[in-house]
């Protein structure tokens, strides 16, 4: 059974249609890439799944439960974690405290949250920053911290919004390693990404959006040779 099923989701802002009848699914433990040119509606769709926008119509079902229109905090409880384009770490806290705050979703006890937070920091290769202020870390470190924080709520699926944008090649590799490690844990990943060389080699499936609609869905090989996709990215050649 599919973990996440997005069925005929449309999102309109007044007269503007950002998403039209988008349907796709994510299986448990899969890495699914959501790609498309600028303005294709990737982030809007992403925000609908994470609860930040209520979809205008359509269903979003996680593990048999319709989560469309739930508030972000309710989506988080249901098992959807997310990161943002900018890391949005809690800058008045240390790295460990950032992750602890998320770990408190399952248990309010501070000592238990610390234990769990340290494990997630180690997972993201950030233990050495545990007691450093989050604001003093580099962009790439803060992005990984945001991933560790999102994972600390013990989600079924993690939505990542452009985790690789603006990173240098070695940082992209680090980010890719983290995504692969997440899959090993059985957590599905839905990755919105511009950096195609980062996502193409690791994705189990790619969903391509253009002008709000899904134009193609398939394996990375199928997608990258598809004339419709090439047309959407490059226009008439």
């Amino acid at each position, binding site marked *: 059974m599919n973990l996440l099923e997005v069925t005929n989701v449309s999102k309109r802002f007044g007269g503007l249609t950002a998403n039209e009848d988008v349907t796709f699914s994510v299986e448990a433990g899969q890495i699914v890439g959501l790609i498309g040119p600028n303005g294709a509606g990737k982030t809007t769709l992403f925000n609908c799944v994470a609860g930040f926008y209520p979809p205008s119509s359509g269903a979003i079902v996680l593990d048999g439960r319709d989560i469309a229109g739930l*508030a972000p*905090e309710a989506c988080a409880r249901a098992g959807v974690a997310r990161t943002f384009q900018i890391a949005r770490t*809690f*800058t008045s806290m240390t790295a460990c*405290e950032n992750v602890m*705050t998320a770990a408190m*979703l399952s248990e309010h006890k501070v000592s238990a949250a610390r234990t769990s937070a340290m494990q997630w920091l180690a997972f993201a290769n950030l233990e050495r920053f545990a007691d450093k202020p989050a604001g003093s870390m580099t962009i790439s470190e803060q992005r990984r911290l945001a991933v560790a*924080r999102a994972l600390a709520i013990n989600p079924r699926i993690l939505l990542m919004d452009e985790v690789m944008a603006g990173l240098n090649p070695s940082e992209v590799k680090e980010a890719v390693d983290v995504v692969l490690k997440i899959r090993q844990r059985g957590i599905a990943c839905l990755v919105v990404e511009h950096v195609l060389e980062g996502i193409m080699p690791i994705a189990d499936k790619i969903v391509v959006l253009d002008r709000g609609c899904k134009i193609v869905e398939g394996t990375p090989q199928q997608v990258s040779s598809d004339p419709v996709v090439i047309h959407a990215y490059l226009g008439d050649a």
Partner: protein
Amino acid sequence: MKVLAFFCLCLLAALALPAFVDASHLNLAILVLMAAQLGVAWNIVGGYAGQVSLGHAAFYGLGAYTSTLLLVKFGVNPWFGTLAGGVVAATLSLAFGWSCFRLKGHYFAMATIAVAELVQIFFTEWEWGGAAVGLTAPVTNAGWAWMTFSTKLPYYWLALGLLLVTLAVNFWIERSWLGYYFRAIKDEPDAARSIGVNIARYKQIALSVSAFFTALGGSLYAQKELYIDPNSVLSTALSIKMALVSILGGAGTLFGPVIGSVVLTSIEEFTRILYGGTGRGIDTIIYASLIIAVAVFYPSGIVGWWHGLRRRWASRKAAAADAVRAHSAAAAPQAPAGEPS
């Protein structure tokens, strides 16, 4: 550890203070303690949770009016009245939060001013509640049983006790999940929601706890003065002072508001003593200038400035130690590094 030692020292000084000062200075000390308590209470929602309220006088007034009305009209003991005032303020903070938390940042602050003004107008017009004339509490039952005294000293102990209780609650909040959630809401509300924090609920919790303790401060004021009117317990200036004490001292820190209150109340009272008699408002001009100076040069408050200074000392000390090490290494290459020359 150092903070704990400093706190114990301050507490000892506060306990010993009444033995050394006269009545007028004791009154100043009471004002400092009361302003500190209000700042600490404000800090819960304004500092930790980052929701800058400029309408807290509403809760202060609700506390003062609840206990005084219960006492004057129904003969209810002020100890109970004080508690009732806290409960009334915390309950009405639900309506306050319901209306104001729809807005963010500056708009939230403006809405809180408006709601507090409404409360002030209500009490100014409310005949049964004393209207603009205010309420005078009876002095017949003096003593601890009725929280009414003819001397200042008992009010000093009450103010100190209330401050300590409020500090203890903040201390607990700061270390519990509430403190983490409040700071998360302040730093990045969207990220807080994405990890399951119901930010509407937690902002309201912060506001209600803050309102409760602000109201206790209001009731204490009413018992100390035995007279209240809308201007003395519901004015916007009062709301601003609660915020200022906390922000100048260091918003979102445990002892910031206490330090802020010592500085601010002293400046306020001394400029009044020195220049207040001229009738030209020089005291308020100096008071305002000092506030602006602190705000411009130490935007993170006195506590933030102190932490910055300590960091600079630490890095200078480390640099000096490095220099000594380099020097001794150059002078005696065989000597182990780090040995004092």
